[in-house]
């Protein structure tokens, strides 16, 4: 339940406070925004630099809030400037987009719109580009599920065809370039081609939007053309398309784009998208319906609020809401993607109410607490180790084949391996604690001797019988090093440990490549092998660049605990 390591997902957006004020139609300062504003859109202010504000929007399921236009629309409700369902009038543009059957195996779906009478400020253009990027990146999963193109409509002559061309069949000037390139060249040479080309990998033909004068609009999801696909403060009328695989998904992206432009004063016009005989009119901003149970809402929130208050709170969240028996029925604009069931509506009631206006109340029932048995046992073993003068270390469970195998002179272990490691230092799970301990010693050669360390931690092994084909095992390792030290020293430590937990054990000479022959034993209790002990092989010491003798033991604490209990 903690996101701090998940930076990739959460959209961070940047906007100017002045721009927000203009869109809101009222003054707002940074403190009001922080304390009674940004929380309504699940945001958190990350940075403020004079007029520019950086905000994390934590709801990855509300892409309509990833721009200042969407934020302003929501806040107008909470500031009671404009509550209830936003209104959008859509006129017909008369433009047709003909979808060729050939796109079916490449990138099958598109939805489109026209927005007219735009007067885009610098801020507005920045916002539109940012929104387009964030949606394509997060909601569109790096342009795979949704890629958005915005074009200068005045340079386009309809109808537009959405079709495919072979790599060398077509040339156009990609955005930001000055020379014509073939589709293949764009994929190989253009920065966007290099970045997103994998999305078209293995396709025989590439998707293209092209108008009736054979001007190329774009090759989705890679790049627009330089001629039609450049939008700036002089653009008055815009054509917008979203391409992808699923109509419902790309429709949300389109709706977010056009409603954001609507906030900027643009007039929305529909487009007829023809799939053979089937035609759809997009964008579709008809309100959707949902409901929630009033009593259930009170129960889940723990708030004693009337149905009328719920209606008011929902209207502030830009729902249309009416009481109908024991329910509240709501309508919302389908730029929202997050309403699966009544809980989603209840959360909006709570957010409108303000989480910080709710009086926290601890759960009052009584229960018995209990730690895991293995943790309790580990604590006892830890106590003995401390008494033996050993210092506890803590290392990672992820390790390298180099450390676990090669340096330990082992060649044939079946290790649990990660398929996408960030480096070979973190590619496999440890199956023993000793290599990590040796690495620790090699990092501390300059520190005063003797060095006597121990670690209690999990190691992982393959186990066909388990649901996850692997098994966690709690191990203990003890490692001693000094100018002179030998097998008898580690053997004394083992003896003390076993005596203090009251267990009889036996030692059996075994051969193990990491230890010196004749100085390595298996530790057996009740006929069960529970560990290994010995003097580390000099070649292993060399591999870890250690210059003093080392003795070590490793014991399976899960087994030991079972024997003692």
């Amino acid at each position, binding site marked *: *339940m903690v996101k701090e390591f998940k930076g990739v997902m959460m959209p961070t957006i940047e906007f100017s406070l002045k721009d927000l004020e203009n869109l809101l139609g009222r003054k707002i300062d940074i403190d009001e925004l922080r304390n009674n504003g940004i929380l309504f859109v699940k945001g958190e202010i990350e940075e403020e630099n004079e007029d520019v504000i950086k905000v994390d929007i934590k709801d990855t399921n509300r892409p309509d809030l990833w721009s200042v236009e969407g934020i302003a629309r929501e806040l107008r409700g909470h500031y009671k400037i404009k509550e209830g369902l936003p209104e959008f009038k859509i006129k017909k543009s008369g433009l047709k987009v003909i979808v060729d059957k050939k796109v079916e195996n490449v990138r099958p779906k598109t939805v489109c719109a026209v927005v007219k009478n735009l007067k885009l400020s610098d801020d507005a253009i920045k916002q539109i580009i940012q929104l387009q990027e964030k949606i394509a990146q997060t909601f569109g999963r790096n342009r795979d599920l949704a890629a958005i193109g915005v074009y200068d409509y005045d340079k386009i002559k309809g109808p537009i065809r959405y079709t495919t061309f072979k790599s060398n069949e077509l040339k156009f000037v990609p955005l930001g370039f000055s020379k014509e390139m073939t589709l293949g060249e764009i994929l190989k040479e253009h920065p966007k081609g290099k970045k997103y080309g994998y999305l078209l990998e293995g396709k025989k033909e590439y998707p293209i939007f092209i108008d009736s004068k054979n001007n190329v609009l774009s090759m989705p999801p890679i790049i627009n053309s330089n001629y039609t696909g450049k939008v700036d403060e002089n653009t008055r009328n815009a054509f917008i398309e979203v391409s992808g695989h699923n109509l419902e998904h790309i429709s949300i992206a389109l709706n977010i784009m056009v409603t954001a432009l609507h906030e900027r004063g643009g007039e929305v016009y529909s487009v007829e998208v023809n799939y053979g005989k089937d035609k759809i009119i997009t964008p579709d901003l008809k309100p959707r319906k949902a409901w929630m149970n009033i009593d259930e809402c009170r129960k889940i929130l723990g708030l004693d609020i009337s149905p009328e208050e719920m209606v008011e709170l929902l209207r502030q969240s830009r729902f249309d809401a009416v009481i109908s028996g024991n329910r509240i029925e709501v309508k919302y604009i389908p730029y929202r993607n997050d309403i699966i069931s009544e809980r989603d509506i209840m959360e909006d009631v709570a957010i409108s109410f303000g989480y910080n206006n709710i009086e926290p109340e601890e759960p009052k029932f009584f229960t018995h607490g209990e730690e895991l048995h293995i943790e309790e046992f580990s604590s006892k073993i830890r106590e003995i180790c401390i*008494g033996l003068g050993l210092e*506890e270390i803590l290392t990672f469970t992820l390790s390298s084949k180099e450390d676990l195998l090669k340096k330990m002179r082992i060649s044939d272990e079946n290790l649990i391996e*990660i398929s996408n490691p960030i480096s070979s230092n973190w590619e496999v799970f440890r199956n023993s604690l000793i290599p990590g301990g040796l*690495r620790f010693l090699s990092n501390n050669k300059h520190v005063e001797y003797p060095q006597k360390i121990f670690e209690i931690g999990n190691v992982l092994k393959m186990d066909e019988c388990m649901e996850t084909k692997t098994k966690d095992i709690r191990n203990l390792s003890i490692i001693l090093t000094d100018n002179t030290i030998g097998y008898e020293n580690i053997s004394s430590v083992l003896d003390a440990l076993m005596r203090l937990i009251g267990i009889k054990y036996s030692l059996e000479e075994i051969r193990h490549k990491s230890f010196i022959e004749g100085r390595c034993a298996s530790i057996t209790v009740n006929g069960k092998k529970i560990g290994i002990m010995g003097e580390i092989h000099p070649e292993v010491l060399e591999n870890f660049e250690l210059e003093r003798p080392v003795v070590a033991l490793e014991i399976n604490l899960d087994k030991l605990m079972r024997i003692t209990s």
Partner: protein
Amino acid sequence: MYELTEEGRKYLKEGLPELKLLEEVKKENSIKNLKESVENFNIALQWAKKNGWVEIKNGNLVLKKSPSKYEMYELLKKIDKREPVSDEQIKILLKRNLIKKIREDIEKKAREFVGKEITNLHPSLIKTGLWRDVKFKKYNVKAVGKPIYPGKIHPYQKFIIKVRRKLVELGFKEMTGPTIETEFWNFDALFQPQNHPARDWTDTYSLKNPEYGNLPDKKLVEAVKRSHEENWKYKWDEKKASKLMPRAHDTAISPRYLFKGVEIPGKYFSLVRCYRPDVIDARHLVEFNQLGGFVIGENMNLKNLLGLLKMFAIEFGNTDEVKFLPDYYPFTEPSVQISIKHKDLGWMELAGAGIFRKELTEPLGIKVPVIAWGIGLDRLAMCSLNIKDVRELFSQNLLWLRNSKVL
């Protein structure tokens, strides 16, 4: 040189048997009775008679005289203090087995020190009493001792133990699960759709070996599949759900317990390592500890959730200055983040939480609300241990470990 035997030492402490007899005779004359009350009566009688202290009359002992000092006892004192005694007296004492000769090599060793200034007090000097004849060299008592390094619990481990104890005190039961999970438990059982960005390889690890695990109970799999397909509207893939991965968050453990059956009402927690690919720096590790769990009960609600979080702020953050922020998790609704005001660091995130969605709990057979919560333990430990770089929590620096404070 001579030293006292065990018997000699006993008599030095308690008095010789004839002296004890003398005391008894003052109260009691019957030999029969005295035999019972006086230890080593025969020896005592022999020496008391020899010394002319008592005589036997009609089966009774009669006191003749009572000495103020007894030579034999004085001899024992002298031997103990290594004062000289005559050869004749030595003979008597040896015969009575009250003294023995000190080993010659020990005496020889001790004599080597006599008259000298010594550094170490040799055991032979104590044994022979010859310490009286040596001088003790003076130490510079202000000099600081050479450092020694006692056994110690790792500072982070100590913190983890403290947190675990605290949760047990608060009535939470500990849960655990496998480090390697199927995507089913890590994602699907938590209602995270298979096309969710968080399941992309950029955000979580997957396994090369082994690659696939088994799915659990068929009915459960069927229910989870239905919940996904009806609500997220896509075709759920069983094969993808059985893919193995290192646990990416502790919340993966909760659905296992909820399905297996838990006490209702009940409180549960887990404290485990989790794994996510990331660039390693002062704030990020690829392996980290998470603390999380849930509280389940018929009447649990958002108010209780906030109450629980505030309690954590007091217990773990030492502050009741808190702020609640609306948040998003695919598996909870409503969702909330709690931030606390740290005395030095200002506002910081403490925990994420929410009420598990019905779309998640119902397939697991749970009919009552479940409040789920999670705390980034590494960050909390850094604040508590005053560490600026998260890598130091797993420090490879023995010197740092040796010098870190226990309090």
